[in-house]
């Protein structure tokens, strides 16, 4: 403890978990030892995208020596779900995607379980599948959930039973009816662009595939070990889905080997708990293979977007009509809220006076579409940000200037009627355009290459229920070191590090004195946290940590003030010592934070072990009108940002080389600037991957590329030659030290920024993702032929 970092907020202190991670000391779920009683499980997957289950016969599989139990839909009669309670833990009656778990085999080894899983005989009656979200939303589409009317959902979700539409969010602003924006408004437009955009499903590809261990004790206590972004939400869903008290469910979550939203909510964990129930007293471990990770856990939803935007001759955007159809997969549990978020943010980061937006999530016979970094925003920005570029082009305005004119600004009445909280998107645009020499034509590196620059901007609000809460505890040790307890998870973003920085800042102790007691996060001992999602942790957990530290600080100052017979208002804590600005006396925290302080002449003592607790929950989010999406406060806040890209296209091969990505985000306050930069770097690479890859299915709904051989994410050799980042700091009113989240935002607009730069280089545009060298090559050459 030689280095002493005082006042650590705003400083780039090293990650609190760095040493353990780089030395391999960190244990992930698959590293944990469970002794000789451990059993292993394998899931039996549906070989059809859409079918009725006629019969399940497990007798042959059960006869395999070493098999201990097999569970099926018979064992899971209750529907479960975070928002839309639309699925059984194991399929009953019907399967809705290729890979859906139909049964779970428990055995004494993984090999035996795998062997026996092949012997489970399931008789299916194959039904017609539907994969495209727009087709699935049509009245004559095969119906995936005929019983939808019986399902339960929260009051802010609007499904349409009798169709495949699980959520329909309506946004109406200005001169608009259900038919569309007033024709008179369109008549004022000097330019109108109307386009259809399509994006495929993509996968998170965490280094650590999903894994879970569950034990159902004979006493009725259930313990689940899972790398989870949502230990408390998992506890809640399990308790509800299994009909047992919350206090009987314990979720233990060590470090997460990559989340990106894929480990939010619940996936295979519920299956494993049900399998453990069949062999009470024995822990049961299930590990997803990389292939299963693709088709049997969560993926990002596909999107069909039809969007029309118009502006006047001076570049003012006047009107927008947009319809989004998210392909939510077989179950839309989490996905309904993605469509909702895409609905109330459907304009992207623009102030548009007349808006008609309809955002749907739609059941499709594909893997479960769920949370992924960006939560609907990367999907809708793909189209919006290209249309804005086209409009600027049509009226002859610089695309960056077009965005400066139209982007949301502090105090604007945005599409839902909410006043835009303080942000500075114009400054973000200025920073990134400066960083890539915007407007300056620069030569390509070879004659067969073309160079281009593109820009895209974004916004995103935390998408969540109105009232998700955080809590925190700080506990002093004898030497004035502190243990901070949070229920948030570190998924690489550095949550534990900023928790320590914030606690140290408030308590007036060096950063190095703080330990974060989170490995594992344990619902039995950790304070409540809704979920580590929505880029809400620095803000929400941060507020709870600050409150807990303040609670402890107040106790300490009161004790010392009484000891000195002074006013607590004159006291402060600096570098681990309580000081008085009035009397200039000093009292080290050491010892007194546990043992207290004596009264005069040792006639009794006061104080005692200091423990501070704190909580935070937004209290101001209001309902939105179901017919118009209007309300006083749709969301807690928005984070905004800009990206500009400089790239080269090889016209002979279609290959794209990204020379530079410049990003600028308004984070309110960078609690740890290095961690913001690592988000910016990771986001740029993740955004690249999302532009160049997708999941592809055959006509039966079987995934054609369920492995890293043919699902290609960007490698270290593909990443941009230079990643530049700028941090803009417009404080958020209720953020700790003004901070707001930035974890997801850093990849939201990367794909359209790349597309805009490719257009700038080659004059070719793309409406559908993914891009590929082949697609770009073909488009360039088709254009050349046309010109000839």
């Amino acid at each position, binding site marked *: 403890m030689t280095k002493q970092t005082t006042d650590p907020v705003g400083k780039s202190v090293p990650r609190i978990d760095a040493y353990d991670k780089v030395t391999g000391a960190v244990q992930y779920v698959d590293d944990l030892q469970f002794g000789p009683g451990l059993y292993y499980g394998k899931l039996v997957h549906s070989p059809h995208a859409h079918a009725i289950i006629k019969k399940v016969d497990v007798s042959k599989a059960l006869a395999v020596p070493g098999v201990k139990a097999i569970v099926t839909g018979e064992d899971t009669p209750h529907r479960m779900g975070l928002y839309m309670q639309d699925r059984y833990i194991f399929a009953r009656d019907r399967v809705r995607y290729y890979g859906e778990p139909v049964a779970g085999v428990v055995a004494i080894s993984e090999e035996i379980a795998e062997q026996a899983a092949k012997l489970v005989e399931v008789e299916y009656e194959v039904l017609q599948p539907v994969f495209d979200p727009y087709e699935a939303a049509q009245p004559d589409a095969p119906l995936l959930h005929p019983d939808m009317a019986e399902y339960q959902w929260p009051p802010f979700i609007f499904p349409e039973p009798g169709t495949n539409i699980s959520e329909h969010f309506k946004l109406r602003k200005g001169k608009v009816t259900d038919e569309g924006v007033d024709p008179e408004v369109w008549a004022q437009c000097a330019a109108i662009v109307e386009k259809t955009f399509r994006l495929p499903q993509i996968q998170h590809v965490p280094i650590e595939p999903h894994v879970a261990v569950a034990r159902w004790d004979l006493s009725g206590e259930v313990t689940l070990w899972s790398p989870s972004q949502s230990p408390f939400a998992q506890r809640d869903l399990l308790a509800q889905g299994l009909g047992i008290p919350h206090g009987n469910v314990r979720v233990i979550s060590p470090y997460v080997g990559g989340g990106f939203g894929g480990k939010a909510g619940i996936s295979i964990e519920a299956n494993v708990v049900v399998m453990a129930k069949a062999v009470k007293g024995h822990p049961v471990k299930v590990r997803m293979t990389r292939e299963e990770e693709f088709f049997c856990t969560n993926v990002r939803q596909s999107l069909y977007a039809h969007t029309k935007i118009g502006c006047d001759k001076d570049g003012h955007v006047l009107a927008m009509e947009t319809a989004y159809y998210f392909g939510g997969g077989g179950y839309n549990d989490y996905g309904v809220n993605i469509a909702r978020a895409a609905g109330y943010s459907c304009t992207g980061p623009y102030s548009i006076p007349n808006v008609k937006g309809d955002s749907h999530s739609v059941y499709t016979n594909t893997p479960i579409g769920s949370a992924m970094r960006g939560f609907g925003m990367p999907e809708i920005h793909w189209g919006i940000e290209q249309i804005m570029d086209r409009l600027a082009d049509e009226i002859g305005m610089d695309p960056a200037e077009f965005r400066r004119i139209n982007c949301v600004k502090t105090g604007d009445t945005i599409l839902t009627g909410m006043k835009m909280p303080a942000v500075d998107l114009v400054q973000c645009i200025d920073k990134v355009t400066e960083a890539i020499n915007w407007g300056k034509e620069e030569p390509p590196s070879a004659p067969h290459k073309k160079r281009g620059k593109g820009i895209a901007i974004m916004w995103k609000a935390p998408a969540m229920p109105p009232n998700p809460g955080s809590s925190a505890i700080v506990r002093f040790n004898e030497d004035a070191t502190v243990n901070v307890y949070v229920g948030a998870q570190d998924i690489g973003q550095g949550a534990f590090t900023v928790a320590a920085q914030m606690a140290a800042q408030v308590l007036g102790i060096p950063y190095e004195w703080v330990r974060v007691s989170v490995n594992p996060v344990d619902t039995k001992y950790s304070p409540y946290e809704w979920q580590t999602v929505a880029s809400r942790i620095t803000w929400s957990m941060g507020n709870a940590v600050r409150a807990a530290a303040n609670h402890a600080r107040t106790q300490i100052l009161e004790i010392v003030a009484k000891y000195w017979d002074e006013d607590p208002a004159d006291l402060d804590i600096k570098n681990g010592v309580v000081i008085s600005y009035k009397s200039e006396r000093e009292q080290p925290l050491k010892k007194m934070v546990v043992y207290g302080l004596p009264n005069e002449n040792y006639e009794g003592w006061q104080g005692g072990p200091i423990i501070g607790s704190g909580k935070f929950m937004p209290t101001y989010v209001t309902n939105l009108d179901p017919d118009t999406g209007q309300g006083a406060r749709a969301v807690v806040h928005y984070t905004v940002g800009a990206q500009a890209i400089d790239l080269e296209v090889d016209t*002979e091969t279609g290959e794209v080389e990204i020379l530079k990505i410049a990003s600028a985000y308004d984070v309110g306050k960078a609690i740890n600037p290095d961690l913001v930069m690592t988000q910016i770097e990771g986001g740029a690479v993740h955004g690249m991957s999302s532009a160049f890859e997708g999941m592809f299915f055959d006509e039966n709904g079987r995934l054609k590329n369920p492995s890293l051989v043919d699902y290609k994410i960007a490698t270290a050799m593909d990443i941009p030659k230079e990643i530049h980042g700028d941090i803009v700091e417009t404080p958020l009113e209720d953020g700790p030290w003004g901070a707001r989240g930035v974890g997801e935002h850093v990849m939201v607009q990367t794909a359209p920024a790349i597309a805009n730069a490719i257009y700038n280089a080659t004059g070719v545009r793309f409406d559908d993702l993914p891009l590929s060298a082949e697609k770009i090559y073909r488009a360039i050459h088709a254009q050349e032929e046309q010109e000839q």
Partner: protein
Amino acid sequence: MHPFDYYKPKDFDEAFAMLTQPGKKVIPLAGSTDIIPMVRDERWLPDAVVDIKGLPGLRDIKLVDSGPLCCAGQTAQCLYIGAAARMNEIAHSELVQQYASVLAQAAQEVGHEQVRNRATLGGNMGTASPAGDTLSALLVLEADVLVKGKDEERCIPALKFFLGPRKTALQPGEIILGVQVPPLPEGTLGRYLRISRRKGADLAIVGLSVMAIPAEGGYQWRIGLGAVAPTPIRVPEAETILATGHDEATVEKAIQATLAAARPIDDIRATAAYRREMVVQLTRRALQDIIAQIP
């Protein structure tokens, strides 16, 4: 994953006893970077694998005298590369860079760093994927493949080794000992180029090996293609054209001849049409690159 027995013999007698167990499907294993994925996908279901990495001499990279089988009749020494030599060992070997530069370049393109630390030349050949990076290089080098069975050794020219997708001239029970590359005259130029979806950790959409060998009054050219036919192929038509010279018009003719030889298919990595276009682009680039080096 399908279970199988693993053997690691120390000598050839032991190895062949294990490889020829009656009624059992036994396959030789080297780097295992192909075998493990194939068994996971249940495309190969061996009863046993025999790890050849411990057999004597199989990891050698050295110069050898012409032998009775391989490299027969050569007056200078040949380059010998053992079947279990790793891709990174081949790519970084000064001997390979000097005697078979095109092969060193191809080995450097295989997979990624971790794969290259395990994957072997013999494995790449035994798997015989049409997209195998090193295979078109072996064709243009006109390497000999030294194989050994229980009772005898024999030499198969690389040009006759690859029979179809994942099919080779190896007989059951035979293993690859290594390859021998005949000596090439000083001034030989070689280039391996490929196109893939990502720069790292990917398979070739098209792979191309080109060599220019100083010959009387000019150059003798060799062109090999990967990933555009059921096996890696040579393009004698283009080579013949280039033998007459390498001015721009002749080069274009050779490119068209190379294109005519390609018979690619559509798959998830690329369409046949794009592969054809890339054959043209890569051939032009490789030829121009080599021509620029010709003194």
